[in-house]
């Protein structure tokens, strides 16, 4: 491993300066569960690691009038041990509770999961279906982008040189909203998704007023399957209507075959998991 220096800035400004100075030779460290493994695996030669956990905004969790906001380095356990987050956003909890084992959840964050931009990331689909917003800091201040624009390719994110993710904002919805995330793995934990789906639904007058479906491990990035989601909007959530959506999701999926799964199996799984996650989200809404 290329030897690197360690920085632990205490403010966003300080962090930006270090990141800008080192450019591609620096990476942020949140939980380290990806970046340290990749650095050791010589995916990149770093001169600096910037530990962002001492910046207050990166680990705080707060509720505004319109959003749940949590720092990009907030470990998974903070989310699932927070009763209000569990109650309002069980779909987010689905993800936070199954990334790695307990040891990993003590350190890994949804922000890190997002920046790592893995096609099979467990956190990103859930964020997409919650219409999450990324708050990004750079030398010119803060900017916001929708979460679905963050991933650009396997391991490639939308951050520019010197930028880093500060926090994630989840818009608050009324009570008729819920979501669910389910992945398929051959084991029962400690595995990478062969295929995964997050679905969210909002209900109005017995009909689906909004729906978002996102797919993982079936493309170069997690996919917002908008064309599938739209097929159920304005309709009753019947088995047949759900089936139509899930078939469309399957069509959208464009996986590769690798050691974790075959193309056919992955596509089939998308159909199954779309059905199951929509049903679960509906159950959570109380349908």
């Amino acid at each position, binding site marked *: 491993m290329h030897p*690197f220096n360690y920085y632990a800035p205490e403010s966003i400004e300080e962090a930006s300066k270090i990141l800008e100075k080192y450019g591609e030779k620096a990476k942020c*460290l949140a939980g380290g569960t990806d970046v*340290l493994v990749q650095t050791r695996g010589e995916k990149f030669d770093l001169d600096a*690691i910037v530990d962002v956990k001492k910046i207050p905004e990166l680990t705080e969790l707060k509720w505004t009038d319109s959003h749940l906001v949590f720092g990009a380095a907030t470990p998974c356990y903070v989310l699932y041990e927070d009763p209000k987050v569990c109650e309002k956003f069980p779909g987010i909890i689905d993800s936070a509770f199954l990334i*790695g*084992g*307990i040891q990993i959840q003590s350190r890994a964050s949804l922000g890190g999961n997002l920046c790592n931009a893995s096609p099979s990331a467990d956190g990103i689909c859930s964020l997409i279906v919650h219409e999450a917003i990324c708050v990004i800091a750079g030398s010119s201040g803060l900017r916001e982008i929708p979460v679905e624009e963050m991933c650009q390719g396997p391991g490639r994110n939308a951050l520019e040189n010197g930028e880093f993710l500060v926090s994630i904002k989840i818009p608050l919805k009324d009570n008729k909203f819920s979501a669910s995330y389910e992945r398929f793995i051959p084991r029962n934990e400690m595995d990478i998704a062969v295929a995964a789906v997050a679905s969210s639904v909002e209900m109005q007058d017995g009909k689906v007023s909004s729906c978002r479906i996102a797919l993982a491990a079936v493309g170069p990035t997690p996919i917002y399957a908008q064309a599938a989601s739209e097929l159920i909007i304005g309709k009753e959530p019947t088995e047949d209507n759900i089936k139509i959506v899930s078939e469309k999701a399957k069509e959208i999926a464009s996986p590769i075959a690798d050691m974790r799964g075959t193309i056919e199996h992955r596509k089939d799984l998308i159909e199954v998991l779309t059905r199951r996650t929509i049903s679960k989200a509906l159950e959570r809404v109380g349908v």
Partner: protein
Amino acid sequence: MSENKVKKVAVNTTINGEEMDILVDPYISLLETLREVVGITGTKEGCNDGNCGACTINLDGRIVDSCLVLGVEAEGKNIETVEGMATPDGLHPLQQAFLEEAALQCGICTPGFLVSAKALLDNEPDPSEERIRHWLAGNLCRCTGYDKIVKAVTKASKESK
């Protein structure tokens, strides 16, 4: 090695109740720090990428894979390892239960399992079998098939009540 000059960093940390100052290369893991710098080797390396749990330690009340933490991150932290479980008065109930239930064969994964299980019982005195299996999912054992490990944790939970 490169134009990037890397210097060792002084770290003040508390390990198993003992406060200490150590000097570490900023790029080495907390696992390597414990084993090579501090010189306590009870914490084991099985994979160095967070998938076996043999290096599990307790960092400020949370279990972590110490291979995925940098040594420099130990600054100001409270670390507990397997070496800190027994007291001069005797073994921790989990250690005793592991012995009585034959919950170890080769023993290489045992320190990680003990540290993980202790964190569980510290917060949940009476976990179900399912909960124990879920909590220990990040700790691999290749010898036992987990049966006796789960039984030992259950036994320790009953006895420490």
